[in-house]
């Protein structure tokens, strides 16, 4: 180290005294503000390490004096959110879906909660907004309900499901395999299909075929679909006189359904496997929401 501080003649800046091949390094210190912030950051990091989770152990970690954890914070926030919801949940307890729908505040709450639950659980089959999907996933936004479109009917359907093997109280009805089990001949199946289409003014079958179809219908179908073909909610038997066809309204599709019926299945949401079933409040909120999509029946 030189004993005397040397100044560079060109810039007037002090040198550090380091020299390489005749080139001397100028001593241009870091800006003060930068340096002080740097020192402050060091002090801050030490304080931070004392108070906040910092040092990892082989198993676990040093949690700091405050033992802060983001996971715990989330749990607190969730608890707080549940706390805020509980005001409405308590009011909703013991009320029927109709009573919930009459209270504007509870209605808003139930619609929001129902929409979220619907998107999580129902939308994969019924599509967002209850638009339904082809192949037997009914539209929930229309006015046609297989198992009934009152609030109570909808709630029972959600709770116990349809043909669900999880729930003994599930909605259960079976349509025989008229064609494939040999109950009716091919011609009889075709005749009854023509008759069914004629109920809603479709098809171009002759009077003779229709008379035969009507005869078969009266013998085989009226017990579930009713004498006039308007269906029966108790058996989930669809109305055959309207414009809505769950499995399609073409002649071939109707014949296929009579021949070997497809029977839709919906889980019992109260009793889903592994204790993942929906709670009572969620089911009621879902009921209110689903009913609101198309205004029920």
């Amino acid at each position, binding site marked *: 180290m030189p004993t005397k501080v040397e100044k560079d003649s060109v*810039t007037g800046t002090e040198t550090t005294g380091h020299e390489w091949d005749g080139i001397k390094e100028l001593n*241009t210190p870091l800006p003060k503000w930068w340096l002080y912030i740097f020192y402050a950051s060091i002090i801050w990091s030490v304080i931070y390490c004392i108070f906040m989770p910092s040092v990892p152990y082989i198993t676990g970690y040093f949690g700091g004096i405050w033992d802060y954890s983001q996971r715990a914070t989330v749990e607190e926030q969730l608890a707080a959110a549940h706390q805020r919801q509980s005001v409405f949940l308590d009011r909703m307890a013991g009320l029927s879906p109709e009573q919930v729908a009459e209270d504007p505040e509870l209605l808003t709450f139930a619609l929001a909660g129902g929409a979220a639950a619907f998107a999580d659980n129902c939308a994969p089959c019924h*599509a*967002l*907004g*209850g*638009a*339904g999907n082809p192949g037997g996933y009914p*539209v929930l*936004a*229309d*006015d*046609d309900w297989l198992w009934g479109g009152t609030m109570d009917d909808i709630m029972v359907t959600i709770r116990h499901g349809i043909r669900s093997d999880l729930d003994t109280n599930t909605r259960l009805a079976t349509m025989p395999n008229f064609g494939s089990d040999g109950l009716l001949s091919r011609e009889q199946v075709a005749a009854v299909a023509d008759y069914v289409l004629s109920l809603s003014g479709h098809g171009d079958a002759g009077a003779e075929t229709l008379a035969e179809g009507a005869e078969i219908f009266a013998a085989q179908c009226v017990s579930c679909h009713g004498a006039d073909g308007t269906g029966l909610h108790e058996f989930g038997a669809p*109305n055959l006189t*309207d*414009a*809505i066809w769950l499995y399609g309204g073409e002649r071939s599709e109707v014949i296929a359904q009579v021949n070997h019926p497809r029977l839709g299945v919906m889980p019992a949401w109260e009793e889903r496997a592994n204790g993942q079933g929906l709670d009572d409040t969620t089911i009621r909120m879902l009921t209110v929401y689903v009913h*609101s999509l*198309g*205004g029920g029946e």
Partner: protein
Amino acid sequence: MNTTQAHPEVVQSEDVLSRQEQRSQPLYTGRVKVYPKAVSGRVRRVKWAVLGLCLALYYLLPWVRWDRGPNLPDQAVLLDLPNRRFYLFWIEIWPQEIYYLTALLIIASFTLFMATSIGGRVWCGFTCPQTVWTDLFMKVEHWIEGDRNARMRLDAQPMSGSKLTRKLAKHAVWLLISLLTGGAWIMYFVDAPHLVTGFVTGGLDPVTYFFIFLFTGTTYMLAGMAREQVCTYMCPWPRFQAALLDEDSLVVTYRQWRGEPRGKHKKGQSWEGRGDCIDCKQCVSVCPTGIDIRDGIQLECIGCGLCIDACDGVMAKVDRPLGLIAFDSERNQRLNAAGLPPVSRRSRLVRPRTIIYAFLITGITLALLTALTLRSQLDVNVLHDRNPLFVTLSDGSIRNGYTIHVLNMGQEERQMTLTVDGLPGAEITVVGAEQDDAVSARLNVTSDAVLTYRVFVSVPADVLDENATDIAFVFDDPDAGLVSSHDSVFRGP
């Protein structure tokens, strides 16, 4: 002769480096602090007047009251963010009408461009908050620590009792002004009387305190410490001055043709063969940004014109004509240098650029006023359901669902009838509304509120001949004589 009576020794020459001279030093040297000297004169008087006006407007405007009826704030200018309402005297603006603010900003911009085109950096030099508050802070500094030389001496001194007292007093007054400034800013967002009582009693919420102290801090930093560095380094405005000024704009100009060659002048010396500039550097010492105006127009010059006052004072003392430094245009300098008369004030003011600006400002102002006058107190948003687009009902008819938001921005409740137009045979169902028949619904729209309705429209399938039919929801308010129609679409298979 006049010249012999002049007394150069009364004109004290200043030992001061201009920015240009400082720039020749290495880049890593720190900022050279500017100690602007106090000056008096015409420009200074105008600046005080503008400063008083601007500060009075800023501090007093939140206290102006405006009666809007019960349950509404009575502050004339209030940006009520929690309730999402902007109140400007008789105008009440809802969030979705924020585009009115755009028009206001465009008008402000063009006014600024026009002012710059005519008068150079008048905004920077006279009305910019940075200039106004820096001026105020410098006045305080001058009052406590004395003028330029006294301040330089004080800063060079080692710390002593009297120096500490002066410094503390100065910063205390600065902080007080900053607090008032920061507080007054919040008054535009929170009711002013409530803010003051709340601040004194400590009853404000932490966010309000945070913003009050934030703006206190920025005022103190920007006007007390940063000063001309804000204009030179932080503000983008000086950077595009070049695009806005032209050779007819008034800028603070050193009349080189008259001043050069400059040089010291002793009493009694002849003025023959030399310029009027006696190189006393008064213009540099009064400059708040520390530049030498004689170097010509430069980025740092905020156009405050204090050097004009300083130079006029000197010219009066040496008995030469005033206006060696003046607000003048570049074209005039060229004409003067060539011995020609300057352009008339009229042809300087009226030129294509200013005419275009004037047209634009008038046009946009008229458009804004028209839009404000004609705007409806009622706004309706119709949202067609995206999922499902339509449903087939059991009788074969097609139904579409809509969510309709009705915004009643007025203070009266409205009784309205909703019908659908453009779709023969359409039936309408409004969830939760009274209906006398299947084609109309009665709506009670409460005042100052947004109401949401769920609406179903259905028609027989054979009415539809395309998969999208334009329809309109018609709201009829017979009491107010108001019919408003809102377009939407009806979708079918």
